[in-house]
């Protein structure tokens, strides 16, 4: 059954591998996935360790429900200390790796040390082997996966790999599985590269016993009907996430020219419908693909239509690619978008960071802070598609002065570039912001400022705040499973009630990440989608474990607090611009120049923002400095941590 999946502790320096069960009381405290990873990180990483040194610990996991009938249990989670901000590193991706890992007998891998030469892990039906990867070094992400299948003569192997960027310890390198499923944020690919770990290959045929098969099947069917009947998921299933970029751009909520504008104009060629047309032309009318067990199928398949890569197959592009290769650098070519998306997939680099950092450098170049000397002659202006793709390559391979500087991530690059370059860097905790502009949406601004892994939309974003739902509907969502009778506002430009929404979503998303399911299957983009109450049922039917909705909420709160404890231990300070719950000054000082009438002219109000953070801290049980109160730790049974329960 799911509960007998193991943790493997792997020391790459010594080659020692230990396999242990996950005690049931640990499951009841942390479930699995990201929550248990956070616990393992806090317990198995030395304070202040070098993120790219052997003391950093890399966690790879599936959730407690991975490969069960909980619906879309495809997610793989990867965690370590981040080489970008020096705080929490964490990424999460779809595909087929985590189910294969679970069928191979494991839910969690804890990888320490550093291999002397390139290696990969081969995980097969309860056994783990460290194998020579010298022949794989230098290969792209897909070349690596196919080569492993060939070497081990099994087409069904699923691998989590790094590309050349990870090998080069580019701090924005990602980990990948399949054609385009990426764990992009916080440079986990660089951590793998620093350990000389090229890949983790898994293949398993071990049964996962379902506690109540008939009920699990019936509930899964209900779950799917609920999920596929939501309009937002139907649109996702037709157009993929580009539809979000298109919708957000329409009212002025995306970044353009780094952070100078909040809307991209004249961009018909990269609108979701135009992208869909290319997919249909090159792949046929049914061109959407799904991750494991998911009926949303939001992943588009395409072939690059024109240019030097014409005819090459890839998947996506997601809306982060639209931001990275279109909106932010102000490029509007579908060829650039699809090519850029392909290149970062192949070299294994976070598309979001790539586009953000290059756009930042473009602004610096136009301001004269960067010159042709640093760009090695490259005309790094906005709307220069060629320069954008060339810079992408230079980062992946650390070529040229600026390529090497940007490969260090925003914070270190800003120190290398000097002058006032840092003022223009749109980041939180060293992590570049998504290609969205939150100046008109205080709830979303609070989310990115306080998200545990840095500027990020998948840790606590109340995205449904944009739907202007009636307060009664909001009340129904936000007062379960914990009562809330404070204020709520349907207005997305408001500040009241938003901290509670951020707190609610923080716990909702943590629970999802512990279960191992996708956020499209909960209250992320759809207000009517399953949450705490439904999860008690899928947990019971699939694992036999009984929880109340409130208990799941408490677990999520506990796991979020562990992440907080880790960040505090590594130097988080409330208003520190590099390591805090703080936004770049441009959010407060530069008004939105474009967009809908209620968006133009908006900034985040500094005082109101401060109050929102205060309020959120209160809900989380933190003091004014963001440090947990002793009674909070006691309430969450964390007063003795690190206690090395596992």
């Amino acid at each position: 059954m799911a509960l007998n999946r193991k943790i493997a502790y792997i020391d790459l320096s010594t080659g020692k591998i230990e396999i242990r069960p996950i005690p049931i009381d640990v499951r009841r405290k942390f479930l699995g996935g990201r929550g248990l990873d956070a616990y393992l990180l806090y317990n198995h990483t030395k304070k202040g360790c070098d993120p790219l040194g052997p003391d950093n610990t890399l966690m790879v996991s599936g959730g407690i429900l991975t490969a069960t009938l909980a619906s879309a249990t495809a997610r793989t989670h990867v965690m370590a200390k981040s080489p970008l901000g020096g705080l929490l590193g964490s990424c999460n991706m779809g595909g087929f790796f985590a189910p294969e890992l679970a069928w191979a007998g494991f839910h969690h891998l804890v990888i320490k040390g550093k291999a002397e030469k390139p290696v990969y892990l081969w995980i097969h039906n309860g056994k783990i082997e460290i194998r020579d990867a010298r022949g794989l070094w230098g290969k792209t992400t897909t070349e690596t996966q196919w080569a492993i299948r060939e070497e081990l003569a099994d087409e069904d192997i699923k691998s989590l790999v790094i590309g050349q960027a990870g090998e080069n310890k580019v701090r924005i390198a990602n980990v990948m599985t399949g054609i385009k499923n990426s764990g992009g944020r916080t440079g986990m690919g660089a951590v793998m590269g620093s350990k000389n770990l090229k890949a983790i290959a898994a293949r398993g045929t071990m049964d996962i016993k379902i506690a109540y098969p008939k009920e699990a099947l019936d509930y899964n069917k209900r779950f799917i009907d609920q999920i596929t009947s939501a309009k937002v998921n139907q649109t996702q299933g037709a157009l993929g996430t580009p539809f979000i970029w298109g919708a957000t751009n329409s009212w002025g909520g995306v970044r353009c020219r780094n952070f100078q504008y909040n809307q991209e104009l004249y961009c018909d060629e990269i609108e979701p419908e135009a992208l869909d047309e290319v997919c249909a032309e090159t792949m046929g009318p049914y061109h959407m693909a799904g991750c494991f067990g998911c009926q949303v199928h939001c992943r588009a398949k395409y072939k690059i239509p024109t240019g030097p890569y014409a005819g090459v197959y890839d998947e996506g592009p997601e809306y982060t690619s639209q931001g990275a290769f279109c909106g932010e650098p102000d490029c509007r070519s579908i060829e650039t978008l699809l090519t850029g998306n392909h290149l970062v997939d192949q070299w294994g680099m976070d598309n979001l960071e790539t586009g953000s950092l290059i756009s930042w450098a473009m602004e610096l170049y136009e301001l004269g802070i960067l010159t042709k000397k640093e760009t090695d002659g490259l005309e790094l202006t906005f709307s220069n598609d060629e320069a954008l793709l060339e810079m992408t390559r230079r980062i992946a391979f650390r070529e040229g002065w600026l390529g090497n500087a940007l490969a260090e991530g925003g914070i270190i690059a800003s120190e290398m570039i000097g002058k006032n370059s840092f003022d223009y860097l749109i980041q939180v905790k060293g992590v570049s912001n998504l290609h969205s502009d939150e100046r008109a949406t205080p709830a979303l601004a609070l989310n990115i400022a306080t998200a545990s892994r840095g500027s990020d939309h998948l840790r606590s974003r109340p995205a449904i705040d944009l739907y202007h739902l009636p307060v009664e509907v909001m009340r129904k969502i936000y007062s379960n499973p914990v009562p809330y009778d404070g204020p709520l506002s349907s207005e997305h430009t408001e500040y009241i009630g938003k901290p509670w929404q951020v707190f609610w979503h923080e716990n909702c998303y943590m629970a999802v990440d512990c279960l191992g399911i996708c956020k499209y299957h909960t209250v992320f983009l759809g207000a009517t989608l399953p949450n705490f109450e439904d999860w008690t049922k899928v947990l019971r039917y699939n694992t036999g474990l009984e929880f109340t909705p409130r208990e799941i909420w408490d677990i999520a709160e506990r796991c979020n607090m562990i992440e907080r404890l880790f960040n505090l231990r590594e130097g988080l300070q409330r208003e520190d611009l590099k390591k805090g719950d703080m936004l770049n000054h441009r959010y407060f000082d530069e008004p939105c120049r474009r967009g809908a009438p209620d968006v133009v002219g908006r900034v985040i109000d500094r005082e109101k923002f401060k109050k929102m953070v205060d309020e959120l801290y209160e809900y989380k049980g933190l003091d004014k400095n963001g440090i947990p109160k002793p009674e909070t730790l006691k309430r969450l049974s964390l007063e003795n941590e690190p206690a090395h329960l596992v």
Partner: protein
Amino acid sequence: MEPMGKVLAITPEKCTGCRLCELVCSVFHDGVSNADRSRIKIMKWESEGLYIPMSCQQCQDAPCMMVCPVKAISRDEKLSRVMVNHDICIGCRSCVAVCPFGAMNFSAIDRKNFKCDLCDGDPQCVRFCDMKAVDYVEANRVSILKKKAAAEKISVARREAAALEREM
């Protein structure tokens, strides 16, 4: 006319490759999640984005049935399916070798063959496939549906040709 029974009708281009069919197949038959136990399997050419669901075709003149030395395999005309009687089966795997679709499987765990039994008339792969890449329809309807799809293409082409002629 008496309907001749329902069959699995697979439309590969509709498959999103999610493999939920493999998961529900193993849970329904064995009470466990294990794609290796699934009667249906999505064959993938990942680098081209091609996904093809493969399952038993419930052949009329089933090679597995003919090759079985102990006559353990027979047709169940009521549900239009080919069934294995495991009380008789000796586990020689001749059926596995002879099946032209690779749809007769052999479980290394249970040490016996296994194949699609159409879930006794309520195929779970169909129940859960939102795209209807796998469908369960009357056998004589399959070709009609394909005719219609092909005819649609022809009619589109004719309309386009007519439009071109008008322009000329």
